[in-house]
């Protein structure tokens, strides 16, 4: 907390006072006391943050005990917890739950960044071509260097994702009408074009099955040793948090950023790299999970505003919670079969998107 001056006695160092003729606000109204640290949006933030963390923890525990394998709370209570159960927990359940948390958190942050970079609320990596380009990159590298390491493949896919996103940004800069709804439209179409290219290339090279795995988010194949790449996503989200102020300003547009001394082009480039890497990471390890990056930031922004430093952690936690919850639902809905998280997010995400659109809240841009 910062020591506040009473507004009435604030030193006139910076600016002269208003003349009496002007209907100036009462100098000692309570609002003035209620300085920055205690502002409603911040209180909201702290509440949401702790609530989110708690929910996420509960979901995580539930996720540990849902599955086909013989591992439930009952085994725990009955005391039949043996080495085999422990192994199942360590090799499958914990990695799977962790993967959902990591993927959800980083995808939601990537969506937020994408929205700031294009100054538009209705975009996210999978609706502007980033994710699709990453999948195309995986198809291409698998054709030309099938034996490359997974990290090398991921980086190659990320470079494709970067190109796809750049193409999108170049296209929307060239739009004459700056309508905030035209931007996501162009993104969706571009994503469709890249997707059909990937489909075509995969089809010609007998890679449709692999492409299916990259374009359909699914945690059922996650085991220890197969998801660790996703931790990089968390590190990238942390970088986004570190540079959150700059990203927020970039979201306000180039003019304001430059005036305040931000290297706008550099911060956009950083954002692009983060978004592309996160898209490629998730495509490689779990496959595309649509709409997380769109829905979560929009809902969080509605409650807490756009101030990046305050909302990046909340966005990450809510994204993690949403994906984890969808994965749990996918495991339960048609037990003992599983429904992939991508399929569930496709329905839930597009429905939420429609609701967001029909609310008609003025968008950025």
């Amino acid at each position, binding site marked *: 907390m910062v020591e506040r001056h009473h507004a009435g006695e604030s030193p006139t160092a910076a600016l002269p006072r208003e003349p009496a003729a002007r209907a100036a606000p009462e100098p000692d109204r309570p609002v003035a006391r209620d300085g920055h640290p205690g502002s409603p949006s911040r209180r909201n933030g702290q509440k949401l943050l702790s609530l989110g963390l708690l929910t996420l923890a509960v979901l995580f525990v539930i996720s540990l005990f849902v599955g086909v394998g013989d591992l439930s709370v009952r085994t725990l209570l009955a005391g039949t917890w043996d080495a085999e159960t422990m192994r199942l927990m360590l090799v499958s359940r914990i990695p799977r739950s962790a993967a959902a948390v990591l993927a959800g958190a980083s995808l939601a942050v990537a969506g937020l960044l994408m929205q700031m970079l294009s100054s538009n609320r209705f975009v996210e990596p999978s609706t502007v071509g980033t994710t699709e380009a990453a999948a195309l990159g995986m198809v291409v590298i698998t054709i030309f260097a099938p034996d490359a390491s997974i990290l090398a493949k991921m980086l190659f896919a990320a470079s494709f994702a970067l190109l796809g996103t750049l193409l999108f940004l170049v296209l929307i800069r060239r739009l004459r009408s700056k309508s905030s709804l*035209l931007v996501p439209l162009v993104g969706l179409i571009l994503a469709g074009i890249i997707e059909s290219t990937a489909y075509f290339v995969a089809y010609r090279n007998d890679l449709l099955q692999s492409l299916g795995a990259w374009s359909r988010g699914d945690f059922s194949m996650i085991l220890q040793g197969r998801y660790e790449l996703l931790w990089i996503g968390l590190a990238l989200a942390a970088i986004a948090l570190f540079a959150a102020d700059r990203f927020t300003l970039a979201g306000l547009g180039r003019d304001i950023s430059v005036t305040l001394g931000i290297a706008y082009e550099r911060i956009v480039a950083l954002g692009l790299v983060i978004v592309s890497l996160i898209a490629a990471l998730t495509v490689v390890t779990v496959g595309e999970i649509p709409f997380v990056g769109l829905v979560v930031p929009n809902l969080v922004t509605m409650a807490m505003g756009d101030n990046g430093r305050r909302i990046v952690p909340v966005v990450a936690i809510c994204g993690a919670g949403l994906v984890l919850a969808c994965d749990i639902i996918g495991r339960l809905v048609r037990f003992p079969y599983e*429904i992939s998280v991508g399929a569930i997010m496709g329905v839930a995400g597009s429905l939420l998107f429609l609701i967001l*659109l029909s609310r008609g809240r003025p968008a950025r841009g």
Partner: protein
Amino acid sequence: MADVAKPANGETLRDREHRSGRRVAWPTSRQMLALLAILALASCLVFMTVGVRGNWGFVLQLRAPKLLAMIVVGHAIALSTVTLQTLAGNRILAPSIMGFDSLYILIQTLMVFLAGTALAMAIDPIALFIAETAVMVLFALTLYGKLLGGATRDLHRLLLVGVILGVFFRSTASFLQRLLDPNAFLVLQDTFYASFNTVRSDLLLIAAVLIGIVTAIFWRLVPQFDVLSLGRDTATSLGVDSTRLTRISLGLIAVLVSVSVALVGPLTFFGLLVASLAVVLVGSRRHAETILAASLIAVICLVGGQTVLERVFQFDTALGIVIEFFGGIAFIAIILKRGFT
């Protein structure tokens, strides 16, 4: 400076349009239609005859249903796109972009989901198709009636809502398909991608009949469409009941979409592609000409494209993907070029 340059610039542009005019090199719309008809006929002939060796009867029997399906589908998509564009008052929409195709896929899935796989497989496919089409008309009227009926005049919102509706229908259909048992999944598996090789020939006859009826009704409505393209308000003051026209047309468009999706599957951008080309070639003032041109272009693209891909590149099932690719690029080009508001 700019103030002075603007009017001068505008004038020269208009002057240039006047002088160089379309009269010099551009054929009249009738000549253009004749040219398109010849091209369409030629591509059909080539498709039927190229590479035939030996048993003609067998080959013709194999290719004729495919050709008929392509003509029916091409015409259905062209007709539904041109009419929907006039209803919505712009040239950037198409039923498939607005999610009609996906809605039909969802209805197909729902039918199997609700009836159960066994029943769905036992039912006569024609009866099932008619039932699906009926549901489709009902849904289209209730869902899109409001959306296109003039409540939303914000074109961008309309488009985006349509596109996302399509995504929602598709995701829901694919979600439901996963809930079904593997058998049912097999029944529906092909629904998501367009294919001209696995044409549903069992539905071909009923499809052709339906398309014929719909075309006849639209033909009678063409004069009203010409008036409607002047704008909803003008049309109303000229005595065209635009609300009624919208309802009838939406129902008919739903039938057209059902036919094309049931026969070959969804094609998102094809309608926009052929309608745009038609407007470029013959203009959009007279709907009879625009629709005819769009249909002919559709047939040329489908039949010609399939012939070229099959015979020259040996790609047998890629036509749908190729169309989507170029159609998408055309869509973005239109948006960038017009910067439409």
